[in-house]
């Protein structure tokens, strides 16, 4: 094989979801024996690109050309396997109840019967590369997540992969294990494997990659040789844009503290201090896995608070369940709208009134008139677009579904509102509406905690940003000092 010809070239790939462009005209080539890093914020299009290469989704336009000269309009998982493409996703792809050896040799056959001896040998061989001690006959679910990651990588080695895609592979690993992983990656590189490496951690990219491509808003910005660039240049490319969205201005927050969190630990977060004032929006920044959603769930009583204290309006509250959170004036709009936010198969009315039914009932009987009045009022206030309130929520657009969830929370008359990724999966026009909505709520005096992975949103809406990293507060940035570069640096632990 000519070392200069790429294993795979993607050309002019475009992909849209419901009118939102996830990838726009992206062309990239991946060469054998090369580690190619993909860099970009959440939503830059990295995941969409690797899913297209792995055959999990189909591109709208563009082609994939392989070294054998064959051109495909789209991939399938089977096709990807034939070409020796293997993906290590952020979420594990192992079968938990099978042993380590069985997972590594999954899908391969030697003879008519299962050959445990052979599988064990293969697994041990792979682990020798890693210099780790994992018992091949133990069930995968018994392993720590870092060890599971090593099993995943070992599987890729065993499969004689030609193109290995690693999506945030270092996330569950310790520093020492990352080092070991790098030795394995280097060995693979020597064997001529082409590797696509996705990571938020800048220092890893400089350590391991030969080339780095920066992506932003679904577009390829630039491909550079790693040896010829530096951190600040890359950050500039990642950020490099004006804020396109317009964010409503609003009156300044008061200095009246509504929510106060003191030394809270739990759910993977440690020693969190946080204050949110009346009329203030505090943004929680951090990379995926930094512990933002985890913190929200602790405050809302979904997950257990291990230590620390929570105050609402200066009064200490003990919150052990969502119903107690609601009773104490705390509301949450969950990250996963469809699974946790609403009852998709029920009507708009049923959804909005769900949290306040006891209050609008007499002797257990729902006062239908009150329910209707209350839901109509909220639906009008939030401008929910639907022919009537009996409409099933699953028939609404993402933006309107989200408004239903907000209405349900608002109905409880809460003082603190936690928004977890409020604009995920919502189209551009509706995003503006959600921004306005959150802004208005702050003006009305709600204390708002905003979790979002979209930088523009975070900067545009927040009065103050608290940055989390690995379950700890990394720092706080005041409005005048907001900059994407600074947040990114703090979130990736560089500052």
């Amino acid at each position, binding site marked *: 094989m000519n070392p200069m010809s790429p294993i795979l070239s993607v050309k002019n790939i475009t992909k*849209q*979801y*419901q009118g939102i462009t996830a990838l726009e005209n992206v062309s990239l080539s991946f060469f054998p024996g090369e580690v190619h890093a993909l860099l970009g914020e959440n939503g830059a299009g990295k995941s969409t690109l690797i899913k297209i290469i792995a055959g999990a*989704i*189909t591109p*709208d336009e563009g082609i994939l050309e392989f070294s054998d000269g064959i051109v495909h309009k*789209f991939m399938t998982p089977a096709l990807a396997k034939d070409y020796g493409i293997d993906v290590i996703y952020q979420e594990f792809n192992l079968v938990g109840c099978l042993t380590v050896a069985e997972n590594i040799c999954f899908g391969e056959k030697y003879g008519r019967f299962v050959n445990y001896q052979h599988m064990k040998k293969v697994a041990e061989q792979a682990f020798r590369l890693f210099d780790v001690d994992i018992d091949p006959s133990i069930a995968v679910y018994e392993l720590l997540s870092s060890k599971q990651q090593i099993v995943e990588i070992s599987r890729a080695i065993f499969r004689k992969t030609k193109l290995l895609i690693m999506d945030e592979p270092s996330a569950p690993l310790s520093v020492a294990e990352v080092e070991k992983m790098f030795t394995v990656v280097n060995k693979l590189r020597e064997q001529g494997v082409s590797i696509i490496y996705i990571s938020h951690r800048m220092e890893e990219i400089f350590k391991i990659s030969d080339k780095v491509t920066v992506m932003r808003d679904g577009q390829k910005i630039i491909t550079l040789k790693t040896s010829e660039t530096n951190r600040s240049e890359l950050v500039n490319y990642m950020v490099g844009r004006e804020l396109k969205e317009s964010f409503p201005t609003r009156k300044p927050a008061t200095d009246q503290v509504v929510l106060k969190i003191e030394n809270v630990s739990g759910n993977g977060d440690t020693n969190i201090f946080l204050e949110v004032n009346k009329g203030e929006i505090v943004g929680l920044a951090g990379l995926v896995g930094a512990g933002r959603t985890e913190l929200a769930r602790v405050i*809302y009583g*979904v997950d257990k608070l291990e230590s620390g204290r929570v105050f609402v309006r200066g009064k200490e509250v003990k919150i052990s*369940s*969502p*119903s107690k*959170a*609601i*009773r104490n004036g705390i509301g*949450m709009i*969950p990250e996963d709208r469809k*699974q*946790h*936010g*609403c*009852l*998709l*198969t*029920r009507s708009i009315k*049923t959804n909005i009134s*769900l*949290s306040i*039914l*006891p209050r609008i*009932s007499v002797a*257990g*009987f*729902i006062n*239908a008139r009150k329910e209707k009045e209350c839901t109509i009022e909220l639906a009008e206030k939030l401008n929910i*677009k*639907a*022919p009537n309130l009996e409409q099933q929520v*699953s*028939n*609404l*657009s993402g933006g309107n579904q989200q408004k239903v969830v907000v209405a*349900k929370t608002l109905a*409880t008359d809460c003082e603190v509102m936690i928004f977890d990724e409020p604009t995920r999966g919502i189209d551009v026009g509706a995003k503006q509406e959600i921004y306005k909505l959150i802004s208005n709520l702050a003006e009305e005096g709600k204390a708002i905690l905003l979790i979002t992975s979209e930088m523009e949103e975070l900067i545009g809406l927040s009065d103050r940003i608290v940055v989390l990293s690995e379950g700890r507060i990394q720092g706080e940035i005041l409005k005048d000092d907001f900059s994407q570069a600074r947040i990114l640096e703090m979130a990736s632990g560089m500052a």
Partner: protein
Amino acid sequence: MVKVLGSLKTMNISMILRKYAIIFIFLGLFLLFSAINPAFKSWENIRNIIIQNTYIVIVAVGISFIMMSGSLDLSVGYQVSAIGVLTARLMTAAGLPVWAAILCGIGLGMAFGFINGGVSVLLKIEPLVVTIATLPVFRGISNLISGGLSYTNYPESFRLLTRGTFINIPYDVWLAIAAVLLAEIVYTYTYFGRYVKAMGSNEEATRLAGVNVNFMRIATFVISGFFVAIAAFIYISKLSTVNATYGPGIEFTAMTAAILGGVSFNSGEGKMWGLVIGIFTLAIIENGMQLAGWNQYLQYIIKGTILILAIGFDRYQRIQKTKRKTRQLEPRMATQ
């Protein structure tokens, strides 16, 4: 929005068919059996079918609370058995007054429900799995209470439950009607009913909305236990005798009928009229085939087949619904 509305309109006819399918099936079977044997549609026979199924209606109403909240209860049959022998023994061998025996029976039923629901909440086990475990427990309890004996010669006032009438309609029929109406009122007008359905459609979202789903889980089982106890009284009164082997099987008849009538155990959906028609559909299949002189074992096969078809139809409709939704979400992918 306009697009969604358009597709809603075209869905209407199939939706009506789906919603009322059980009525068409019921009517079809009714006409079929009437044609095979004219005796089937005699008032005498119809009256019999109704009276024979009152306790099934009440059990099904009870289980509907569990099903609508997203689970199943397999232990109901042995609950009937244990409640039956306890009540019978107390008012015959032990000589307790009828009202006291009835109170004890209801108490036992609700205690069984509390155990099922409570264990599920405490140990965080799927309720269905808990009932698989409590099934043999209740069976053992029932046998211990009965001491291996059968009980007969109930006091006259207890026998009145199925023999007495009001406006020419037996008391147990009135009880069945009352149970159905009560459940319908709870599901339609109370927030408790709303919570049950909400749980059935998405338990986690319901919990996050501030509903105490643990309490709800236990409450649905306790309510079911109450209805099961009432049904057990009618059952043993009708048979005039009871021992520990009486009862098992009722749970399957009731759940089959409920599923047939559109009460779902994974989406919080269902109507009480559907439940009633489901029960009588099963009942006329059995009765009609008997009158037609068909082999009893053939009846089992046909019943099971009908259940599979009913669930399959429901599932098929759901998949179609999801497919429509996916197409709406990713129109571009579909055209590729």
